[in-house]
C-alpha cells in the first residue's frame, strides 16, 4: 500500500516493468519440460506435453505419455502414445491437438484426449520423413507446414479442408535451413527460410531470394526467426548477435539491437499486450531471458469474441458455466443458451454406454423445442459416432422436415428422406432426393417408390417430359398407365416421327394402348387418324397439293375448293361425317369459291339439315344480295324475319312479324327501320302493336 512503484524495475531508459505471478501451475510434472514436445494453445488454451523419447539415441522401450493440461495446469487428459514417433505438436484454432508424426501422418485429438481423425501429408513426406514441422494459424483455420528429409516443404493452409501443396525446390539447398517460419500474406501462406547468409521466400510458384532492409553487414548465418501472431512482424537473430525486427513483408525495419550474445537462442517469440503500442521480442537462452522492444506503432490483436469464449467453455464441457454466462450477458437464446444446449447434446450422443432411447429422451427433455436448436445437427453428430438408430430418433424431434433430409440421405434412408422432403413442401429438396434415389435404387424400385408419391412423381414426370422422354415412357409402362402411354405415342406421332410409316406405327401403338386403357373412344379416334393419314398421303400423291396434317374437316374443304367434289363426298361417307357438318362445310367452301351455281344445286339436292338462313347469311357475307334473296324465301317461319332483314326487305319482314304477332320480332324489325325510307313500315308496326295491346 505504501509504495506502488516498489516492485517496478527499470527497463532501458524510459520504461519499467514488474513481475508478478498470475497463478501457479497446478500440475505435477514428472518429466523435465526440456525433454518434452510442448504445445500451448493460443488465448490461454490447453497445453500438451509429450515426453520425447525418440530424440534420444536409443529409443526407450516404454511408450511415452501424452498429457494435456489446462492453461493453469489442471490435468485434462493423459494417454499412452501408441503411434509412431512424433516430430511436432500444435493446437489448431478449434483447440484440436495436431500431432505430426515422422511418417507424415497427422493425428488429431480433442482437448480431452479423444481421438478425432488422422490424415497424411502425402507420399513425398512419407518417403522422405519429416525433419521439422510447424502448426500455424491463418484466418481460414490452422495449417501444417512440413520440412522433409529431402529439404523440401509441403504445407496445408487449412487442415479442415485438406489441400496439400508441395513448395518449389530451393536451388542448391544441400542441408536443412538454419531456421524457417511460415508467413501469411494476402491470404497466402509462404515459407521464409535461411540458408547461410541468404534468405529465401517460397510461395506456391517460385522460390525467390529476399533481403532484409537495413540489415547490418557481416552476417554469415541466421540462427533464429520469429513471426508475430498476426503475421505482421518478423524478427531474426543473426550469428553476429544482432536482432533485426521489422515487418513481415520485409519492406521495413522497425529496429535493431545488438545483444552481443552469439550463441543460438533456444527460443525467440514476439510478445506484447493487446492494444499495446509496445511490441517486443523475447529471446531465451539456456539461462538468460532478454526482452527487446520498440514503441512506434500500435498493434491490434483480435480479441476473443464472446462467441469464441463460449465455444472454449463448451469445448471444456463447462456447460453450466457457459449457460450462466449467457444468462448473465442476456444473450439471445439462439446465440446463447440454445447453442450451449445443442453442444451439450452433441456431447451426450457420444456417451456410448447410454441406450439410444435414454439419450434421445434426455436430450429432448432438456432441449424441448428451444428456438435455435437444430436436432438435425445433433442427429448428424450421433450418426458420426456410428449411432444411426439414435440419429433417426433424434431427427423425429426436428420440426422442420426439410432439415432432416440431408442426414437421412447420408444415412441411406432415402425413402424416408423423400417423404420428409415432400412434407417440407420444398420441391427442390424433393428433386434432390429423387436424383439420389435414382442413382441408388434400380429402376424398378425407383419407379415403385415414385408410384406412392404423386407429388414427387409429377415433379419427375415434368423433368422427364423435357429431358428424358424415354424414361417418361418407361414410367407409364411401369404403372400400366395405358391412357398416358397412348397420349405419349399420339404426341410422338406428330412431334418425333417424320416418315408417314413411322407416324402410322406410333398411332397404332397409341391405339393399342388406348384399348388396354379401355378408352375405346380414343382408340377409335386414333384408328380413324391412321386411316386419314394414309389417305392424305394418297391424295397428295394423286392430286398434288398439301393434305397431310389437315383435320378431317379441312381435308374435305380442300378437296371441294380444289373442285374434287366426288372425292370429298367419298371421304365424307368413309369417315361418316354428319350431314349437318357436311352442309356447313360445303356451304362455306362453295361460297368461298363464289360458285353460286353449284351452291344452288347443292341447296336443292335435298332438304337442308341446317335450314336456309345460313345460306342467306353467307351470301350476304360475300356481298351477294341477289343470291341471298333466293334463299330468303326458303327460310323457315321461325327465322324468316331475320332472313328478310338480312336481305334488306324491311317491309316484308314487318309483315311476317305482324303475322307472327311476335313482340321480339316486331322490335327487331323496328330497330332496322331507318329514317325516311321505312317510315311507313314503322308506323305499321306501331299500329299492330297498339292493336295487340287492345286485345
Amino acid at each position: 500500500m505504501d509504495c506502488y512503484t516498489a516492485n517496478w524495475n527499470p527497463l532501458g531508459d524510459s520504461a519499467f516493468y514488474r513481475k508478478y505471478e498470475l497463478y501457479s501451475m497446478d500440475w505435477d510434472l514428472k518429466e523435465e519440460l526440456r525433454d518434452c514436445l510442448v504445445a500451448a494453445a493460443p488465448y490461454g488454451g490447453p497445453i500438451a506435453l509429450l515426453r520425447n523419447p525418440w530424440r534420444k539415441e536409443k529409443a526407450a522401450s516404454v511408450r511415452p505419455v501424452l498429457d494435456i493440461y489446462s492453461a493453469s495446469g489442471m490435468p485434462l487428459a493423459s494417454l499412452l502414445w501408441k503411434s509412431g514417433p512424433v516430430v511436432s505438436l500444435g493446437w489448431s484454432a478449434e483447440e484440436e491437438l495436431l500431432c505430426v508424426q515422422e511418417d507424415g501422418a497427422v493425428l488429431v485429438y480433442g482437448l480431452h484426449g479423444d481421438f478425432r481423425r488422422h490424415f497424411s501429408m502425402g507420399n513425398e513426406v512419407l518417403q522422405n520423413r519429416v525433419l521439422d514441422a510447424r502448426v500455424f494459424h491463418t484466418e481460414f483455420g490452422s495449417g501444417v507446414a512440413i520440412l522433409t528429409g529431402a529439404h523440401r516443404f509441403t504445407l496445408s493452409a487449412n487442415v479442415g479442408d485438406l489441400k496439400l501443396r508441395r513448395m518449389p525446390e530451393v536451388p542448391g539447398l544441400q542441408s536443412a535451413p538454419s531456421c524457417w517460419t511460415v508467413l501469411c500474406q494476402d491470404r497466402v501462406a509462404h515459407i521464409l527460410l535461411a540458408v547461410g547468409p541468404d534468405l529465401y521466400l517460397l510461395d506456391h510458384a517460385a522460390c525467390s531470394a529476399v533481403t532484409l532492409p537495413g540489415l547490418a553487414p557481416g552476417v554469415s548465418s541466421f540462427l533464429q526467426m520469429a513471426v508475430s501472431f498476426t503475421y505482421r512482424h518478423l524478427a531474426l537473430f543473426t550469428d553476429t548477435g544482432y536482432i533485426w525486427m521489422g515487418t513481415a513483408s520485409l519492406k521495413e525495419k522497425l529496429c535493431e539491437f545488438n545483444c552481443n550474445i552469439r550463441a543460438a537462442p533456444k527460443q525467440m517469440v514476439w510478445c506484447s499486450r493487446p492494444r499495446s503500442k509496445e511490441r517486443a521480442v523475447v529471446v531465451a537462452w539456456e539461462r538468460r531471458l532478454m526482452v527487446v522492444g520498440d514503441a512506434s506503432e500500435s498493434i491490434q490483436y483480435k480479441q476473443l469474441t464472446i462467441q469464441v469464449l463460449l465455444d472454449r467453455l463448451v469445448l471444456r464441457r463447462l456447460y453450466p458455466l457457459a449457460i450462466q454466462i449467457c444468462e448473465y450477458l442476456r444473450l439471445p437464446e439462439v446465440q446463447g443458451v440454445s447453442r450451449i444446449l445443442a453442444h451439450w447434446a452433441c456431447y451426450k450422443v457420444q456417451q456410448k454406454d447410454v441406450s439410444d432411447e435414454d439419450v434421445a429422451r434426455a436430450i429432448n427433455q432438456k432441449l424441448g423445442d428451444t428456438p435455435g436448436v437444430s436436432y438435425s445437427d445433433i442427429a448428424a453428430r450421433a450418426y458420426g459416432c456410428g449411432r444411426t438408430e439414435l440419429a433417426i430418433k433424434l431427427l423425429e424431434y426436428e420440426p422442420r422436415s426439410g432439415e432432416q433430409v440431408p442426414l437421412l440421405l447420408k444415412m441411406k434412408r432415402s425413402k424416408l428422406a423423400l417423404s420428409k422432403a415432400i412434407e417440407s413442401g420444398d420441391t427442390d429438396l424433393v428433386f434432390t432426393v429423387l436424383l439420389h434415389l435414382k442413382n441408388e435404387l434400380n429402376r424398378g424400385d425407383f419407379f415403385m417408390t415414385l408410384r406412392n408419391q404423386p407429388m414427387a412423381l409429377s415433379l419427375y414426370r415434368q423433368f422427364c417430359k423435357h429431358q428424358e422422354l424415354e424414361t417418361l415412357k418407361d414410367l407409364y409402362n411401369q404403372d400400366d398407365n395405358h391412357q398416358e402411354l397412348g397420349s405419349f405415342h399420339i404426341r410422338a406421332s406428330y412431334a418425333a416421327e417424320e416418315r408417314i410409316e413411322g407416324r402410322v406405327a406410333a398411332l397404332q401403338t397409341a391405339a393399342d394402348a388406348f384399348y388396354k386403357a379401355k378408352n375405346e373412344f380414343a382408340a377409335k379416334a386414333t384408328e380413324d387418324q391412321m386411316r386419314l393419314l394414309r389417305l392424305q398421303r394418297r391424295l397428295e400423291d394423286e392430286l398434288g397439293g398439301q393434305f397431310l396434317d389437315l383435320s378431317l374437316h379441312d381435308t374435305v374443304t380442300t378437296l371441294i375448293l380444289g373442285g374434287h367434289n366426288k372425292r370429298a363426298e367419298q371421304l365424307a361417307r368413309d369417315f361418316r361425317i354428319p350431314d349437318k357438318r357436311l352442309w356447313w362445310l360445303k356451304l362455306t367452301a362453295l361460297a368461298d369459291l363464289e360458285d353460286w351455281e353449284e351452291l344452288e344445286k347443292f341447296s336443292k339436292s335435298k332438304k337442308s339439315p341446317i335450314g336456309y338462313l345460313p345460306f342467306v347469311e353467307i351470301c350476304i357475307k360475300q356481298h351477294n344480295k341477289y343470291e341471298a334473296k333466293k334463299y330468303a324465301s326458303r327460310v323457315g317461319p321461325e327465322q324468316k324475319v331475320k332472313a328478310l332483314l338480312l336481305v334488306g326487305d324491311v317491309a316484308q319482314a314487318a309483315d311476317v312479324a305482324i303475322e307472327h304477332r311476335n313482340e321480339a320480332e316486331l322490335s327487331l324489325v323496328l330497330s332496322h327501320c331507318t329514317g325516311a325510307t321505312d317510315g311507313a313500315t314503322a308506323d305499321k308496326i306501331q299500329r299492330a302493336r297498339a292493336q295487340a295491346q287492345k286485345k
Partner: protein
Amino acid sequence: MAFPHRLDAPELPDFSMLKRLARDQLIYLLEQLPGKKDLFIEADLMSPLDRIANVSILKQHEVDKLYKVENKPVLSSNEQLCFLVRPRIKNMRYIASLVNADKVAGRTRKYKVIFSPQKFYACEMVLEEEGIYGDVSCDEWAFSLLPLDVDLLSMELPEFFRDYFLEGDQRWINTVAQALHLLSTLYGPFPNCYGIGRCAKMAYELWRKLEEEEDGETKGRRPEIGHIFLLDRDVDFVTALCSQVVYEGLVDDTFRIKCGSVDFGPEVTSSDKSLKVLLNAEDKVFHEIRNEHFSNVFGFLSQKARNLQAQYDRRRGMDIKQMKNFVSQELKGLKQEHRLLSLHIGACESIMKKKTKQDFQELIKTEHALLEGFNIRESTSYIEEHIDRQVSPIESLRLMCLLSITENGLIPKDYRSLKTQYLQSYGPEHLLTFSNLRRAGLLTEQGPGDTLTAVESKVSKLVTDKAAGKITDAFSSLAKRSNFRAISKKLNLIPRVDGEYDLKVPRDMAYVFSGAYVPLSCRIIEQVLERRSWQGLDEVVRLLNCGDFAFTDMTKEDKASSESLRLILVVFLGGCTFSEISALRFLGREKGYRFIFLTTAVTNSARLMEAMSEVKA
C-alpha cells in the same frame, strides 16, 4: 358514372416499393458482372422487365445489346453474356447450346444466368448434364410481384395454371409463399387469413413456415392489410370461362391486355400505326369506365366527349390573360384527355363491330342458359354447330367446358359426339387436349348413378384420400364433380330478376355478367368476409370438394386499426379475370372495403383454354 369510393374507404398501401426493390436487386445482379455485357431476355420476361427497368437503366449498368431468348443463332460478339430467364429446362438447353458452340469455336466468354423469380435444382441439373455447370455462374432475381395497378399485383406466372392444375407440379407454390412473406415483411402481418383450395392451403402453410423461421421480423409491426383471402382457380372455373362484358374484361378478351398494357391496332387508333397503351388508374378516362358494363360505356364516352368540347369552347370569349392561363394550365390536360378519349372510343367501336353481331348475342344467350341450367339440349346443339362451323377452336372448347361444369359432366352420348366433332374440325392432336381437360376436371363425363347422395359422400371421401395422394387417375374425374347447380342454389348465384336488370345502377356483383350470374369466387369471398369464417358454409365447402382445404386463421392481434381491417388482399392461385376484379371492386364500394388483388397472372377464358390445349409444334 364510375362509382366513387365511399368517403371512409381506406387508403391503399403504396406498392411502388415492390418495383424499387426489384429494380435495385436487378441492378445489383447486373453489377456482379462488371463491364459491358449483352443481355438475353426470355420473351415472357420482357414486358415485366420493362415495367421495372427500362432500356436506359439497363444501359446505365453496362448492358450493351439486348437479345430475346429464341432458337436462333447468336450474333453477339460481347465477351460477357448474361441470361435473364425463367427456370425452365428448355432455357437451360438453349444456354448450353450457346456455351458449347463457343467451346467448339475455342472461344471463352463469361456467362451468367439470372433466374427469375428463383432457381430450380432441376435447371442446375440440366446445366450439369450438358457439361457447362462450371462455365456459368447462377443467380436469382427474386422478382415475384409486379404492381400492375394501384390495387393489382401480378406474379406474371401464367404457367402456374397449367403446371399446378394440370401437371400437379407444385414448384411455384413456394414462390407464392415467398411473395406473401415479402408482403408481410413490407406491409405488416395479416391478422385474418382465410383460404379455400388445396393449393391455397399448401401455400399458406409454407408461408407460415417461412414466417416462423424468420421469427420476430414482422412481430410488433402494425398490420396495414387486415385480411388475406387465398383462393384456388379450380374452386371456380365457371366464372373464368364466361365471356366478359365489363369494359376492362372485354378489352382483355378482345385485344389481350399484356402485363398491364394493350396494343391497339390501326382499327382502334384510326391511323396506320399500332399504339401500346398502359391501362391503369392513371388513365383517367379508362379509370372511369373500366368496371362498367359495356352497354354503358359508349354513352358515357360520348357524354365525356361533349363535356370536353364544352371545355374547349370556353376559349371563346376569353381575354388574353385568361387564354394564356388556359393554354398553360388546362390545354395539356384536355389534350391528353382528348387523346385517351378517342382511343377508348376507337376501342369501343372495334369491340362493337366484333361483339354486337348476332353471333355474340347468341353466344351470351347460350352462356346464360348454361349458367341458369335451362334449355340444355338447345345449348348442346348450339355448341355442336359452333364446332361444325369451325367458328373458333378455343371458343368451342370453352363452351364445352362450361357445359360440363355447370352440368356436372356431359352425358356420355354428348361427351363422345362433341369430342368427335371437335377432332374432325380441329385435328386429332386434341385427343390430348381432351385428356388434359378431363384431368383438370374441366371437361368430364357423367358417371352412372352420380346423383345419389351416397355416392356424393363417397366422393368427398375420395377427395380426402386424394389429400393423402392416393387417388388414381380413374377416379380423379369423379372426384372433381363440380356440383355447380347445387352450389349456385345455395349461394344464390342467379339473381331473381323482376323486370329489367339496371346495368347502369347495379345492385349486386351480377352486373359484371349482365345481371345473369354472380361470380362464384367473389360470392364465396363476400360470404366469408361477412361471417369472418367459414361457419355456416359447410355445405358449400363440401360441394366444392374442399372439405379439407377451407381454413380460417385469426390472430388475436388488436393492433389492427379499423382502417386496415377494411383492406383485403385476395390471392388468386391460377389466375383471376378482370370481371372478378370489377365485381370485387363493386363489393368494396358497397361495403366500404378496399380489395387488393394478387394473382399468379391475369387470365381469361381463352388463356385457360390455351393452357390446356395441345398444339402441334
